[in-house]
């Protein structure tokens, strides 16, 4: 019996209800393939994603976190994704600053009509995380040593 030792990353995708979640739906109904490692969490708006959600996902063992929202200008609530954009930029910069590998967290704008983009984004993100390997640092930044 062969044992499959291939690294299976755990990926959390926060998708906004109005664009990206519908985009994921379209990817599904168009029979586009993307890895099953991606676990989608539906949020009302990308702006609903508290930076703590991302940190908590990492702490609980996620290897990558991706936030998908409507394209800037297309937010269902007019301006939510603009705020999310600033927040995530600062958060990602902080993650880089504390020594977390670049690229573990990502923001992508995916509209409801972009099923192909959704599948492509997830494929590229999963391969990026596979390259980076397991997330060990954010598991515990404070472990006593």
């Amino acid at each position, binding site marked *: 019996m062969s044992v499959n030792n291939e690294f299976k990353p755990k990926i959390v995708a926060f998708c906004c209800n109005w664009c990206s979640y519908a985009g994921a739906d379209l990817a599904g109904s168009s029979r586009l393939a993307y890895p099953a490692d991606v676990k989608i969490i539906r949020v009302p708006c990308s702006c609903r994603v508290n930076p703590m959600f991302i940190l908590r996902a990492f702490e609980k063992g996620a290897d990558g976190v991706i936030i998908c929202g409507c394209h800037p200008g297309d937010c269902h609530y007019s301006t939510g994704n603009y705020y999310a*954009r600033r927040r*995530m930029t600062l958060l990602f910069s*902080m993650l880089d600053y504390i020594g977390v590998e670049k690229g573990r967290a990502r923001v992508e704008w995916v509209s409801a009509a972009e099923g192909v983009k959704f599948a492509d984004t997830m494929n590229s993100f999963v391969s990026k995380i596979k390259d980076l390997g397991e997330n060990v640092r954010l598991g515990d930044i404070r472990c006593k040593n």
Partner: protein
Amino acid sequence: MQELITRAKELLENGTVARVLGWKIGDLPYNPEPAFFETAESLDKFVYNGFCGANLSKYMIEASKLEGKTLVCLKPCDTYSFNQLLTEHRVDRDKAYIIGVGCKGKLDVEKIKKTGIKGIVSISGAEADSACDTLEIDTLYGKKSCAYGDAMLERCHVCKGKEHKIYDELIGESRDTADKERFAEVEMIEAMSPEEKFAFFQKELSKCIRCNACRNVCPACSCRKCVFDSNKFDSAQKANVDSFEEKMFHIIRAFHVAGRCTDCGECSRVCPQGIPLHLFNRKFIKDIDELYGDYTAGAEAGSLAPLTDFKMDDAEPSIVNERG
């Protein structure tokens, strides 16, 4: 200092203010503590010297709920915090009578101790009125001396300037103390490899004992109910709710005050473990300045914080991967 006390007594006696918020002589020569003074006699214990680093603006949140005006002594950097609290409607301007006090740089006793000076009995040269460049320290082991600059708090080396941003009157002179580049430390860390960065922060943050002193002293941390408060027990406000908070406390806290932090440096000053917590806040300030334009929290009351604002053409989060 005498001028300050005389003026405070005058204002107390003519009823302009109901109490004075200042610093009281502590039990050691280097630990004056914030205190309210309600009578002219109690002002005998009032002190203002180089060790009065405490930022009194946060106490004005409680003082704003009291009857009558409070005279509050604010150093130039404290006025930024006061302005920020005004912006957030946490303090009442009408309940405050602000005396802007001069500042010649505040001292850190830990830095004096690090030079090997122990058993401090008294310190001269730290008085607010004198313009000494050296501190004469009487110790149990004889007389010692220490350069004023060497004993200064980190934040005073990167001073924002000695201009009071808000005040009713000014007492005392200031001396320019800025002699270091504000973002030099941040840039040094940014230049490290991810492994080095992680090792550095893991080493620093592992010292944390979760005493919550940084949160309690922070003028930007003024929420009535903090996310770090336990919702299970009222008395155990320090108790962490879960391991997540325990691990990510400092990152979350820095994020919560991002764009509102005036870089007053109180977090690093009060940390009993000597963790350079200002490095987190300053990183956010540097990023905000670079990405969204220069912004100084508290420089102007009523200004819009960068995280409650946006522009159509803001940088995409992927810019982080492209920057150095």
